[in-house]
């Protein structure tokens, strides 16, 4: 079976009903996509298939065919991180980091559809991605920041930090 992963063509020998998640992790060798629940409930395994977010733990590899697959490893260019990844760094989003591949993949699709998302649109697009560490407030800020970096203009003003304190300073 031929897959197109991050612009590269790869040949895998697996049954068609094998979950895409494990094909990516074990056959293609890309472990940035994570196993969390196995039931499409946590979003840790989110990848793009044909530009759309898919929970790879419940996506049969046979259903993907030759549609292009993008994983977290395929976002950055040689020269630079993807603006969403850059925004994640600027807002110091990750704690344990395990869910963040999926979070970032979801955010990239959101920003493609909504270059200046409102908080409600962020809620809609991101609520399928679980984070046990509780990084949601930072993810929200990072999505707004990524919108700026992507050239979506100023976007919606990110929520204020305490008393409008400058980042990194003590309120």
């Amino acid at each position, binding site marked *: 079976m031929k897959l197109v992963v991050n612009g590269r063509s790869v040949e895998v020998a697996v049954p068609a009903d094998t979950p895409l998640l494990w094909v990516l992790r074990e056959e293609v060798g890309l472990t940035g996509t994570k*196993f969390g629940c196995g039931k499409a*409930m946590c979003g840790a395994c989110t990848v793009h298939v044909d530009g759309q977010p898919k929970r790879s733990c419940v996506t049969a590899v046979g259903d993907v065919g030759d549609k292009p697959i993008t994983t977290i*490893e395929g976002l950055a260019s040689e020269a630079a991180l993807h603006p969403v990844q850059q925004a994640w760094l600027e807002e110091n989003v990750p704690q344990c980091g395990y869910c963040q591949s999926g979070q*970032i993949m979801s955010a990239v699709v959101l920003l493609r559809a909504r270059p200046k998302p409102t908080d409600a649109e962020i809620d809609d697009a991101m609520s399928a991605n679980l*984070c*046990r*560490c509780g990084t949601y407030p930072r993810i929200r800020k990072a999505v707004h920041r990524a919108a700026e970096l992507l050239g979506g203009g100023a976007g919606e003003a990110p929520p204020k930090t*305490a*008393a409008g304190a400058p980042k*990194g300073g003590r309120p």
Partner: protein
Amino acid sequence: MSGLSRRGFLVGALAGGGALTLAVSCGGSSGATRVRHADQTGELVANLYVTVMPDGRISLIVNKAEIGQGVTTAYATLAAEELDVPLDRVDVQYAGSNPEMRTSFNMQITGGSTSTKEGFGALRRAAAAAREMLIAAAAASWKVPASECRAEDGFVLHSGGKKLGYGELTKLAARERVPGKPRLKSAKEWKLIGKADRRVDARAKVDGSAQFGIDVRIPDMVHALVIHGPVFGARPDKVSAEAARAKPGVIDVFPFRWGVAVVAEKYWQALAASRDVTATWGKGDVAGLDTEKMQQAMRAYDDDGTGVVDSGNAGKAIARAQTKVGGVYEAPYLAHAPLEPQNCTVRVDGGRAEVWAPTQSPTLVQAFVAEALGIDSEDVLVHTLLSGGGFGRRSIPDVCAQAAVIAKRVKRPVKLIWSRESDMTQGFYRPVYAVKVEGGVEGNKVTGARMHCVSQSIALSSKSMLGAAIPGVPAPLKSRMVDSLLAMFSTNTMGDLFATEGLRDTPYRFGNFELTASPVQTKMPVSAWRSVGHSVTGFVMESFVDELAHAAKRDPLELRRQLLPEGSRQTRVLDALAALSKWGTPPPAGVGRGLARQFSFETEVGEVADVEIVDGRIKVRRVYCVVDCGVAVNPDVVRAQMEGGIIFGLSAALDQEITLVDGVVQQTNYDTFPSLRMFEAPEIIVQILESDHEPTGVGEPGLPPIAAAVANAVFALTGVRLRRMPLQRAWNERGAK
């Protein structure tokens, strides 16, 4: 040089080098080894933690688990500060099992929000020692007094203008004496502590390259999963696995003491084959356990219990009081549910084992694996990998014992990955609690308080668990481990120390205060869950004080201020919280405000929650949080931990519970054990109080106040007192009894 070989060198070079817990006293016989190593490699191994590389970079061994709490960044900051290098010049490796690094309770363990406190002295001394060796080496080569030299930005500088990079000095510095008491920078000299905010592990966590336990790859490795029985502890009886064994890639399917192991070349093959396994099961350890009945019994529990605190005469003070308040506060079992399911990779080679694990305790991994294989725990080498969340669950290496047994049987390295369902149903939960509280109010004064705390004991549960693990531990270590564990899990006359923390040591001066405790036992093991006893006692104490305030017709903040010692960290935080949240300003219509605080892990945290009820759903809109954690080494990491503790705590406070019906855990995945999602995450506003106190806990203290802050807000909004977690269920069932 790989981490493993450096560690091998370190053990060889420094074992027997004396008191190494502070990592700076390794002179004597190890000096020659250090020189030889420097001459061969150009590396200055200053001590167990700090190595200066020939390119001037710093290689730092972090003897803690990175479970998201930011310890990597904190330790890198402490080392970079004293070595005077930018943070990005520090490369971090995680310590594997190393007998010289058992710095907590004679173990290597990450827990109790102690890492930054522990590292604050040790890491700075280790780095300062390296700095002084580099300075001494430069001074000697220039033939000038060391006092005329200083370290800056990775160079040693002489007042006369000479300059040498750290990397150029490693061989010379290896010949210098290791300073016993290196000078530490004063707080005024700090360039990074209190300022550095970039997490050093963030980059790898946004580009997918971070290697978690589940990602490790070992040559010749195969994959396994374990089918666990429907009841915790159930052993497989009749297993039918012919069809599974015939599946492609399957290596073995076999019953063992924990369930049925399915082993295949690839995990997806094991997963596919597991669907063809059928089994009948024995009764299991918790057969018949029903949490609804258990909680009913705990609610009605009226033995005297063990006396924990008895100050004044609470019984009399309450009996005589005009107004009495109180009731029974309850909390359920909780799973930790970290996003990375439990997993472990093991290679067994004769009487030795090598383990790769996302673990909070390499020492306990050694003990569990040794016991499972019947070998000596010193023959178990553990590599610590990144954890996708821990919250306490990764101090229980049951998964490692299972992986070891499987690896031994199939004679290949095995990566065992639990399903989410196994992760959620295999016990070691936060204990169930029922705490009966009574208080007396006379006019606007509190006359006394009495509490009886009924809970399953982490101490007893841990003892029986460790009892199983201990046989594999060699005698000298065994006694040290047992001693320190007994101290940790003491069930002395004060009862289980975890059960009553936050109650027995309450800073409130009730005048008359009585606390008793009764442990209940079940065979469902319990363990530390983020903030341990405080996860419940914060809810109990702070809801109770709110009850007292309303009965005394006092403002809840004012009453607290009066009951707390004047000029304490507690009142300082309360004052800041009042200002931050504009406490006293009436909230908008439809919004209730609740306040709570808790002193836990030596850190004081106060929180105010703004809550609405929309279509029957408790919605937390905003949380104000003030924290006094001493010196905040990385302020933004502290803020993140407050945010994370609040959201983790809200998930539990509002919705989560593990229940059992006839011995079967009813919650198996994130649908039935829900966690807060983006659309319900409140805005969180954190203020860190300036302090020159040494750093105290951060990973856990954000959690304990939040449940009571929300429950108190619900009361302020509706007049309904919710005394049972999860609060949403209590709200739905209010008045139902």
